[in-house]
């Protein structure tokens, strides 16, 4: 895919979507990589018995990382990420398929900045992790 050009963009344009179905192996690897030993991400008996979650919990920061990837995979070398935020609003559990995506919120063509709305949705279509970002295109 060619990197985007700011003059081709308009508010509402979508960013490429991607689906993720975490497995207990992928969650184990992610948590090993971030040095997180919290058992709700790999120990079924502990997760349901002790912390009373319905199932193994998909990491909130992992969803944030998918949103960062949504931006930088779309932007490529055309610019750089300037601000980025997300908020984990609703839990997600092992077995769910999640969708990452976003859209152009607004542009300041002269300044070279583009504001983006970002989301992680579940299969019911609920936005469980909303986010936003500002990217600055290289002149």
């Amino acid at each position: 895919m060619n990197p985007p050009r700011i003059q081709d963009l308009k508010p509402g344009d979508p960013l490429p979507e991607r689906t993720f179905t975490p497995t207990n192996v992928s969650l184990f690897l992610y948590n090993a990589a971030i040095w997180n030993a919290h058992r709700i991400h790999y120990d079924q008996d502990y997760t349901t018995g002790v912390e009373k979650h319905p199932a193994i919990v998909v990491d909130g920061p992992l969803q944030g990382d998918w949103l960062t990837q949504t931006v930088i995979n779309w932007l490529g070398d055309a610019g750089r990420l300037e601000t980025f935020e997300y908020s984990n609003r609703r839990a997600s559990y092992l077995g769910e398929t999640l969708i990452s995506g976003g859209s152009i919120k607004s542009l300041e063509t002269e300044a070279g900045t583009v504001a983006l709305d970002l989301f992680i949705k579940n299969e019911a279509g609920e936005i469980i992790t909303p986010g936003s970002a500002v990217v600055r295109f290289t002149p």
Partner: protein
Amino acid sequence: MAGGTKSHYHRTVKPGDVLVATRTFSAITEKQGSSGPLIFIEYELNVTTDNGEPVMSETLTRIVR
């Protein structure tokens, strides 16, 4: 539990940069959630070069039941 993150990238990093990261425990507040009280903890992460040039700053929220 994870609550969210707000990051600002001031400049890109280059080979040879020496970075200094400071993490500050900045706030703790209690809110009433639908299933009982929740405690919100905030951390500030600040990254600069060794001569003080800002590189990245971040607010990280964690939620404790």
